[in-house]
């Protein structure tokens, strides 16, 4: 019953109107899987159920195509966040589990733990740097990077999709704070 309620809960955040150049848009439901597996247990398997795990640490690799996107965010030496369309979660869970049968691993559906925002517009990197301490220049955080870091007082997972386009993912209870922080920061850059 709890899962049923969580799955159908209203979105935590509503879009906040702003005339700033950088747009902060809450993204709709997404499937997120937390995969933990040691490199030794992975044993060189880089393609798991359509996910490309070959990227170096703190990188994002795209798999699948179009609507059936399958992104793999390599967040730690033995940790990936797999992002899939919301209606494919169970199917992808089974596919990854099947590909890893016999190995020691942990695969947990954390879709409803997080809320994602799209941050897009000229100067989006400088705007995120209002609360994020890492160097977001294209040289040190190129397109295709993804990492866990901080925004203000909240932990976020930051992925760079293009030079001026990011995805900010944060825990559900932090989402209103993160959204407010980003909207306020965007106003400074008008």
């Amino acid at each position, binding site marked *: 019953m709890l899962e049923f309620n969580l799955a159908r809960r209203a979105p935590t955040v509503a879009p906040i109107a702003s005339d700033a150049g950088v747009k902060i848009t809450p993204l709709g439901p997404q499937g997120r899987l937390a995969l933990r597996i040691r490199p030794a247990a992975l044993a060189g398997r880089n393609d798991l159920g359509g996910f490309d795990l070959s990227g170096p*640490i*703190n990188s994002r690799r795209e798999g699948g195509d179009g609507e059936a996107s399958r992104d793999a965010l390599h*967040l*730690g*030496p033995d*940790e990936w966040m797999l992002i899939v369309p919301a209606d494919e979660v169970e199917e992808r869970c089974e596919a990854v589990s099947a590909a890893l049968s016999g190995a020691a691993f942990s695969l947990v559906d954390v879709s409803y733990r997080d809320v994602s925002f799209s941050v897009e517009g000229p100067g989006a990197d400088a705007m995120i740097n209002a609360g994020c*301490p*890492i160097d977001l220049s294209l040289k040190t955080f190129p397109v295709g990077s993804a*990492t*866990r*870091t*901080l925004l203000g007082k909240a*932990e976020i997972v930051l992925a760079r999709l293009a030079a001026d386009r990011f995805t900010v993912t944060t825990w559900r209870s932090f989402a209103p704070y993160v959204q407010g922080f980003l909207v306020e920061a965007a106003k400074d850059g008008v």
Partner: protein
Amino acid sequence: MLLIDCPYCGKRPEVEFHCGGEAHIARPETPAEIADADWGSFLYYRTNPKGVHAERWLHGHGCGRWFNALRDTVSDAFVATYEMGAPRPDVAPENAKA
């Protein structure tokens, strides 16, 4: 901002990290058989050196891994970082000015 060289992620800002106290302190294998004074020493007594100090650090708001670091307690400079389980690098204090 102070940058700390995580063995997994490279140079990252200090606010993502958390210090976990002195490194390379092995828990006695048979606590019941050692003297109270020795147990107290294991629990509470630390070296607190002036100079290079081996510490445990956690990259909590990053890759989430623990690692060890050599830090100069005088200058607050990080001399070296290395993975858990690796031996302490041999660094002379005069080389400790990073």
